[in-house]
């Protein structure tokens, strides 16, 4: 296999490290000038850094196009070289990674810009403007890490980014680390995300170990080149590799059973949810499987497992999304569900469909989250407006009461909203675009990508196809429910009544994203298949065959009808007769306990908590307190060793205190001294006793010699 050496390829590719450096430079600047720059400058620096990364990504795409899509590996720096282990900081530039680069930096830059406005209000709202630069530092760090993830030319470098984005996720979820439930809720959510991800990372690590000792390398090029041969020689190992990798995927891409962190991750500021927990980071797992396609295609067992996990997740979390009231939680579970679609796709071998959905999802889900952020801030503005009036009109005593109410008010609860389309028209329209795209209504982006997945599934894996179709139905339903609850009907609370539209710095990125969500389907329009041809360069290079299925009107029509039907159903429940204040959800009447299950997320968290977390805490305390300290440190060391020692010396001493066993002295020093004190009683001070000792010694020695 020939791999284009960087020397023989355009010098353009040498620019690739800058895709990481720009964000790093951005964050460094913001660290150095921490607190000395205005918010706008800080945001601009960060956005520019991200934008420059996008420029690099575009240049790479252009370069690849010039280079006929030939993959290129750009070595940069030696990293870990031990014996056969040869790991470098090297960049993989091929059509697959470039797609990811474009999505990450493109969507990322838009969200950066949006965040300039959003965070301006957020830091005021949270009362800590000093945190503003920190946000952009973390944001830039995230872009850098994500770039490492998608450009890495080896599993290990991918892993660097993989954990790096996890770190950013941790930092940004817990960005308002003194807020949330009991003041610590956000921090705990961040910690949960990191730890759950680490469980996945454990799988990834083991997969890497297996890979290295089976393939002799961790570089993509070498591993993929040997894939057929190794899969032949040791199929078991390769299955194990794919399964452990799947564990990693379930962690990062929030699949069953490790999805529990993603809903909690909504504790982060909304741009974070949009960028990290919807558009980019969580899709890393999909990217990993697509990247490892040359391995996966050899092991159907592994592929099946991935597909099933994806399908089940898609349906499972869709049911939960139906029962949520928090505007962001609905989107979060929707994200999990959509990730399930992608994972199922790449699992089935429909790599292009998976990547396609990844891209369109990045557009519309980022859009949805950002719009949701806009809604939330609109609500907060409304709330602020009321508080302002209260300040003017009411007496001090009432103000206190007001403040209490304000504390209880949740600007994210959809039950507090209603009729917002009048107050926030721009937000409404973009939100609607996103929702319809997500629901899979033609001709928006989501329709095409989802349709492609369903199409492939209908051919490759019927049970998973059924799971996905069911999930798609639920998707349309919960998005309809959300739209009607948030934007239609009458405002159910005062803040909703006074909600205000967001500034242009936020709405303009929204409009761009809405545009992308609308037309994103063109990327891989049936029949033209631009994306497929683009990605084919890479897959073909690694000898993965992509089978392209022709557009199937039957599948498309079915899914369209189903989507429209469930939107209609949503209208019947939520639109026709809008929810009143304090009224229970109409679904509760219909579904009863099932709805309770959906609402309570099927108690997965509770089960995990009970089965794993509590047990581990108990174990840790048991080990630390009983085993290590009381048993090993105190009892064993200070009692057993000493007591044994005492017993031993007791035999030696002639005039031991036989009146009962002495209380075992506490502590090494005292214990030993007690023993010594017993022995020193031999030294009575009486000469005759001393002589007796001598005499006894004589008798014993003589006796020994005579009766030996």
């Amino acid at each position, binding site marked *: 296999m020939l791999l284009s050496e960087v020397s023989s390829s355009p010098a353009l590719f040498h620019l690739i490290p800058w895709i990481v450096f720009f964000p790093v430079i951005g964050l460094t600047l913001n660290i150095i000038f921490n607190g000395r720059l205005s918010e706008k400058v800080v945001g601009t620096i960060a956005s520019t850094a991200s934008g420059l990364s996008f420029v690099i990504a575009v240049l790479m795409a252009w370069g690849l196009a010039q280079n006929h899509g030939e993959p290129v590996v750009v070595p940069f720096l030696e990293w870990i070289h031990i014996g056969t282990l040869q790991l470098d900081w090297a960049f993989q530039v091929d059509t697959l990674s470039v797609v990811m680069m474009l999505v990450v930096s493109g969507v990322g830059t838009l969200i950066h810009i949006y965040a300039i406005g959003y965070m301006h209000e957020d830091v005021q709202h949270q009362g800590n403007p000093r945190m503003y630069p920190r946000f952009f530092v973390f944001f830039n760090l995230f872009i850098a890490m994500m770039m490492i993830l998608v450009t890495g030319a080896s599993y290990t470098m991918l892993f660097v980014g993989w954990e790096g984005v996890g770190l950013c996720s941790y930092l940004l979820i817990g960005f308002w680390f003194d807020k949330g439930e009991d003041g610590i809720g956000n921090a705990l959510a961040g910690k949960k995300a990191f730890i759950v991800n680490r469980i996945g990372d454990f799988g990834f690590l083991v997969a890497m170990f297996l890979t290295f000792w089976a393939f002799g390398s961790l570089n993509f090029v070498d591993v993929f080149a040997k894939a057929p041969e190794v899969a032949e020689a040791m199929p078991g190992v390769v299955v194990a590799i794919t399964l452990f990798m799947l564990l990693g995927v379930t962690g990062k891409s929030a699949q069953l059973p490790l999805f529990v962190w993603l809903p909690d991750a909504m504790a982060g500021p909304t741009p974070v949810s949009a960028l990290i927990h919807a558009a980019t980071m969580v899709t890393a797992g999909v990217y990993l499987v697509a990247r490892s396609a040359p391995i996966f295609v050899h092991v159907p067992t592994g592929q099946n497992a991935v597909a099933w996990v994806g399908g089940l997740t898609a349906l499972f979390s869709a049911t939960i999304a139906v029962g949520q009231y928090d505007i962001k939680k609905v989107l979060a579970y929707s994200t999990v569900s959509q990730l399930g679609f992608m994972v199922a796709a790449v699992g089935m071998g429909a790599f292009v469909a998976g990547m396609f959905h990844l891209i369109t999802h990045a557009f519309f889900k980022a859009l949805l989250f950002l719009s949701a952020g806009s809604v939330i801030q609109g609500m907060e503005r409304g709330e602020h407006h009321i508080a302002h009036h209260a300040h003017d009109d009411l007496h001090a005593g009432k103000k206190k009461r007001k403040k209490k109410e304000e504390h209880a008010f949740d600007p994210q609860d959809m039950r507090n909203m209603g009729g917002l389309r009048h107050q926030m028209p721009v937000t409404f329209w973009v939100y609607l675009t996103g929702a319809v795209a997500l629901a899979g209504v033609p001709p928006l982006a989501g329709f095409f990508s989802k349709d492609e997945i369903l199409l492939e599934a209908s051919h490759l894996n019927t049970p998973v196809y059924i799971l996905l179709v069911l999930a798609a139905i639920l998707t349309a339903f919960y998005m309809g429910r959300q739209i009607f609850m948030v934007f239609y009907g009458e405002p159910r609370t005062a803040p909703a009544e006074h909600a205000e539209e967001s500034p242009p710095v936020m709405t303009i990125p929204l409009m761009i994203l809405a545009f992308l969500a609308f037309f994103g389907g063109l990327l891989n329009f049936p029949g033209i298949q631009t994306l497929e041809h683009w990605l084919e360069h890479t897959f073909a290079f690694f000898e993965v065959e992509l089978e392209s299925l022709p557009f199937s009107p039957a599948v498309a029509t079915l899914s369209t009808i189903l989507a429209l039907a469930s939107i209609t159903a949503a209208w019947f429940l939520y639109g026709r007769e809008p929810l009143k204040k304090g009224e229970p959800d109409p679904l509760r009447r219909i579904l009863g306990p099932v709805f309770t299950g959906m609402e309570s997320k099927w108690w997965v968290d509770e089960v995990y908590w009970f089965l794993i977390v509590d047990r581990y805490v108990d174990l840790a305390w048991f080990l630390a307190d009983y085993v290590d300290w009381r048993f090993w440190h105190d009892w064993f060391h200070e009692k057993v060793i000493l007591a044994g020692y005492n017993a031993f010396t007791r035999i030696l001493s002639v005039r031991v205190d036989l009146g009962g066993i002495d209380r075992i002295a506490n502590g090494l020093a005292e214990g030993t001294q007690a023993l010594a004190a017993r022995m020193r009683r031999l030294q009575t*001070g009486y*000469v005759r006793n001393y*002589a007796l000792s001598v*005499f006894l010694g004589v008798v014993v020695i003589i006796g020994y010699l005579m009766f030996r």
Partner: protein
Amino acid sequence: MLPITYYVGLSAVLFIMGALGVLIRRNLIVIFMSVELMLNAANLAFVAFARYYQTMSGQVFVFFVMAVAAAEVAVGLSLIVAIYRARRTVNVDDLSEMKG
């Protein structure tokens, strides 16, 4: 002539009596005399063996022992006298200020 074992046996008995005397008696003077008894038991053994081997060196040894014993007596008695002066007692068990 009596066999050598008799002499040695006698000396051993004397020696043990001396040793037990040291262990049992409380009067310093008596203890001291018991020690002398032990030395003399040894002397008896020396003389007996010397006679058995027909050599003088055993006899010589006895003289040495006696001389040394005399020196010990000089020191010992003066110590006892000093103690008696200070404490008005020759009971060995009263000398147990230091112990442990």
